[in-house]
């Protein structure tokens, strides 16, 4: 099936095999179609079907609020083709670098563990190695739940057949219900990855500040792992602010403490508690980790004041936290847009 994409950078064509949606089919073939969440939420991959038969996989995708259905608009991440088609994309569509192309993987879940009452960690053994950058995510789907979900990799290696993920339970979230209520050890997942542009790029030579809430810390852990592994933090500094409600909601403290030790003084990790005062200034079990009271972006603003030299910022978490952190990075850190990285899922 021939897919013709009309874009602001001209016309591109690819041959689709109908195995997945138009976004994934295009990305896999090296076409840099616009996207952020890749899973039906954000509306970034809005497109108009000019010719051909295209159906939507998930008719209730929240991102469809951004499309004009009367004008035959769709979300590429939900659009399946049934024959040749012509689709108009209101964005620049450049070829993707060969090394970064996402691909389909199959994986088996193992090492499932509950980290807190509403946070779960699991790992996936892939059928082959994936290369990805710290901060990237994959779209995961299982047989029992309709639609794919985007989760950032918690771990990082240049190429690995093991991925780690962390998921916070979301009320009514079908995928998180499945993870929390089923024995998912040994279950099969389909994955498309790597995805996402909010990546750690060591070649930029920047100090970094990460502000994360809840399971948004996944990508920050991957960044910490990458930065401590290759001596990056011998010559740069990293600052990670991790927001949770109470001490009982903390997780990955041992893992972060380990990264702090490896960084020999150039990585600071602070857990911000929004709903209680910390018992002491450092974590009782892991004194390498600082504790503070307040919303995570406010804690970060207090501690980072005057220390934004040569900085790149990473943000992930629930929408109000992301908004607060972005304001802080623009207004106080005065970082330009290209050095503020977050997945624009909202």
């Amino acid at each position, binding site marked *: 099936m021939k897919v013709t994409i009309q874009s602001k950078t001209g016309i591109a064509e690819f041959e689709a095999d109908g195995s997945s949606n138009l976004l994934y089919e295009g990305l896999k073939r090296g076409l840099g179609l616009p996207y952020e969440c890749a899973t039906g939420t954000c509306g970034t991959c809005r497109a108009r079907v000019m010719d051909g038969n295209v159906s939507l996989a998930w008719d209730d995708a929240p991102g469809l609020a951004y499309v004009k259905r009367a004008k035959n608009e769709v979300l590429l991440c939900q659009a399946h083709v049934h024959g040749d088609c012509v689709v*108009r994309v*209101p*964005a620049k569509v450049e070829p993707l670098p060969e090394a970064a192309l996402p691909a389909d993987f199959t994986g088996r879940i193992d090492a499932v563990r509950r980290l807190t009452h509403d946070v779960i960690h699991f790992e996936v053994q892939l059928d082959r190695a994936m290369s990805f950058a710290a901060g990237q995510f994959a779209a995961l789907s299982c047989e029992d739940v309709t639609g794919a979900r985007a989760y950032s990799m918690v771990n990082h290696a240049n190429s690995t057949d093991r991925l780690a993920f962390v998921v916070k339970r979301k009320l009514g979230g079908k995928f998180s219900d499945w993870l929390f209520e089923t024995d998912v050890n040994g279950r099969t997942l389909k994955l498309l990855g790597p995805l996402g542009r909010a990546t750690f790029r060591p070649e930029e030579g920047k100090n970094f500040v990460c502000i994360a809430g809840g399971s948004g810390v996944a990508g920050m852990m991957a960044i910490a792992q990458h930065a401590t592994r290759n001596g990056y933090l011998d010559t740069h500094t990293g600052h990670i602010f991790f927001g949770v409600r109470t001490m009982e909601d903390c997780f990955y403290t041992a893992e972060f403490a380990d990264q702090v030790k490896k960084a020999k003084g150039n990585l600071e990790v602070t857990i911000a508690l929004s709903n209680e005062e910390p018992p002491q200034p450092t974590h009782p079990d892991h004194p390498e980790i600082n504790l503070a009271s307040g919303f995570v972006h406010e804690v970060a603003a207090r501690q980072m004041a005057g220390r934004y030299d040569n900085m790149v910022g990473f943000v992930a978490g629930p929408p109000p936290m992301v908004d607060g952190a972005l304001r802080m990075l623009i207004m106080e850190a005065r970082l330009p*847009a*290209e050095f503020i990285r977050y997945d624009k899922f909202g």
Partner: protein
Amino acid sequence: MSWKKVCKATDVAPNTLKKFWIDGGIPIVIANYGSGFAAIPPMCPHMEEPLEISGVISNCVLTCTKHLWAWNLATLEQHGTETEKDIKSYQCKEENGDILALVEEEIVYEFDDEDDMDDDSFFAKS
């Protein structure tokens, strides 16, 4: 076309934005960027975010915090790497402590019928 009073200069603190309605219904956002004022339609040209809420001003630059589109308010030029559309504005001046805007009719972005997506000639080029 005529100059309409929108608000007092002191109504909008430096580096903030505030929404007003003039002529019984035209919404207009006044942005105080420190060295001057800008009068703009209330929504981001990207995805219609309400700029009086989503916008922040630092160093003369208005940034929509939703997706980091940004513009220099003094020159109205696009700013940064994310921005893809120009911001529109009303002519604006400060007179005797009042902020006035030159308003003929409401400025709106062409999200609907005159959408980019409708421009066949644009998309035909390869």
